[in-house]
């Protein structure tokens, strides 16, 4: 079990991580979402021991990754670009991994290469999609327990994206490893994530499954008998998506009794609850004023 405890880090007088706290169990796929600059990549780099926190700890089982370097045999961080090994050929990279990680399975790796028809070239000569497949396959061939993936499908075409996701799913199912994915591709994440960690300005805003998030927040389409009440639009706790004629489509961060009575009080003709997508949840929890920086 992976535990992140009260992780805090300041970089250049800015608090990039603040009291980050969560656990990851085996066989889980966790999505890490947040606006750009929220601290996701820094968090992942800290979780694999590259960056040392000011406060807090990251524990794999009973031990801290900052104290036992051997723990890193079971944790693989895959950054968003294949920059590190670009001068290696695929075979050289495989040989490197094989010597570092005792659990590396050469035949599993070869199998992926044949399936996706990738020849032995220098990694920087591969296409973007092939690079992604190779770096991920190398990582998965290690048969580690924990994977930290930074934007694995970023910039890939539809086919490559699908291949990457399927590879991740098959790995989790086969070996019960855990994957923490940082991504902006919310429509992908909502399909494959067990839980979602939302990061805002270095803090954990929420940790929940999509179903749980849907229970917390609500998206309503209300048709009013008279015009849409101004008081509704002025409420701070809702995000208005659309107002057309007498119909208002909006989302509320928290579904409260108070909101329900408020809407009822303004003479609605029809109230329809619309299921929220992860993108909706993202917007209502993490969107809003002064969040773009």
């Amino acid at each position, binding site marked *: 079990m992976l535990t992140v405890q009260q992780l805090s*880090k300041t*970089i*250049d007088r800015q608090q*990039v991580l603040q009291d980050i706290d969560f656990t990851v169990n085996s066989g889980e796929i966790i999505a890490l979402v947040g606006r*750009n*600059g*929220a*601290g*996701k*990549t*820094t968090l992942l*780099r800290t979780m*694999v*021991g*590259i*960056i*040392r926190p000011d406060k807090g700890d990251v524990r794999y089982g009973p031990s801290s990754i900052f104290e036992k*370097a*051997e*723990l*890193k*045999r079971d*944790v*693989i*961080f895959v*950054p*968003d*670009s294949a*920059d*590190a*090994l*670009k001068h*290696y050929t695929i075979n*050289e990279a495989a040989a*490197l991994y094989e*010597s*570092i*990680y005792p659990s590396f399975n050469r035949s599993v790796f070869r199998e992926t290469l044949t399936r996706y028809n990738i020849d032995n070239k220098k990694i920087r000569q591969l296409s973007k999609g092939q690079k992604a497949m190779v770096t991920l396959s190398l990582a998965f061939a290690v048969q580690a327990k924990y994977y930290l993936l930074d934007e694995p499908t970023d910039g890939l075409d539809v086919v490559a994206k699908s291949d990457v996701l399927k590879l991740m799913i098959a790995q989790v199912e086969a070996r019960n490893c855990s994957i923490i994915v940082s991504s902006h591709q919310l429509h992908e994440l909502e399909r494959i994530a067990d839980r979602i960690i939302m990061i805002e300005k270095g803090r954990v805003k929420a940790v929940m499954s999509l179903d749980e998030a849907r229970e917390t927040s609500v998206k309503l389409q209300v048709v009013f008998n008279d015009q849409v009440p101004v008081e509704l639009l002025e409420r701070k706790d809702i995000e208005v998506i659309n107002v057309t004629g007498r119909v208002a489509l909006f989302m509320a961060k928290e579904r409260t009794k108070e909101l329900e009575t408020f809407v009822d009080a303004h003479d609605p003709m029809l109230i329809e609850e619309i299921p929220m997508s992860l993108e909706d949840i993202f917007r209502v929890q993490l969107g809003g004023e002064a969040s773009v920086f």
Partner: protein
Amino acid sequence: MSFKILLKKDWKQVSILWMLLVVLSVIVFTVPAWTQLEDFNREIENIRANPSSFEGVPLDASNLPDRWFFESGDSVGMLYNGLMSLIPMGMVIFLYVVFGLLMASVLIGGERNSQMSDFSMSLPFTRTQLYISKWLIGASGFVVATLLGGPLLMAIIHLSDFSFLIQPKDLEVSIMILFMMLTGISVFSISLWMGSFGGESISQALWSFVALLFPIGIVTLIEGSLYTFERFVDVSYSLTQMWMESIPLRVISPLANVFNIDTYDIFRSNRLWEDFVTVAPLSALASIVISFGLGLWAFNRAPQENNGRFFMFSNWLWLVHLIMVLTFGMLGGIMLSVVTFSPNIPLYIIGFVLGGFIAHLLAKRLLYRFNLKLKS
């Protein structure tokens, strides 16, 4: 078992430079000596042919043995310097400095430039292991280069007509060559340490220059400044001179040892040789030990998130800034004040302010901006 893989990985990064170092080293150790030996022959021929043009040379010079030409006082010119002129110390040291900086840059700075640094830090090895591997790979280059070039050099001299030059001095020459190797390792070691001061390869190279020259330069600057205020300070003795010959400096800056070698008389004067053999090799060794230790410590402590910055320890930026302003100030002050014949205090002050100001602007540009995109 597993440490070997680190060596293999670092080897892959630096192998071309390493091999180039060895090849060039063999060339630099042997070719100049070879040509110098040829020159000896020619020079002696020349003197033999025209004995009257040379002071102190008897007319029956053609009957004199070669040996004579090396032992009879300054008047016979460059031959006096015999043995030492066969040892290409300057060239070897220059080669070692260049490759020391280059290899250190590839091993650390180059990694920090790319995501290889992150990759290394995510491997199941401690930072100490990572550093030791890099240090060993680099240092080994100098060892191999010297172990090949040195004996070859000695062999060439032994096998030449002038072997009498080296025969009584085999041990001394070996020590000299060993000293060159230690200096090379020391320069590399310091540059590797600077890999944790500078957050990428260019800043690492700059910091290496600073580390090598600062200890010597700063005293010169201070003395030069004091000289301006001669009226108020007694500068009858030369600070710089004393500092240059002091042992602390020779430990801190490996090049100081090199500058201290009197290449003219080192093999002739017992006193000079004693001075050299007791101080130089040991201080070079001490320099290696200290820079290795400091480099290891800095590598362990350097915050990865500062990769790409000019100076990685952001808490101490203010100190770097301050020292830059002071040194450039002194430099500016000295430069302006020597415009007039005698030391001129007002000019010094103006120069100091100008120099300091330029340094301040430079520091603001260099120290406080991000070179690589900060990902979060």
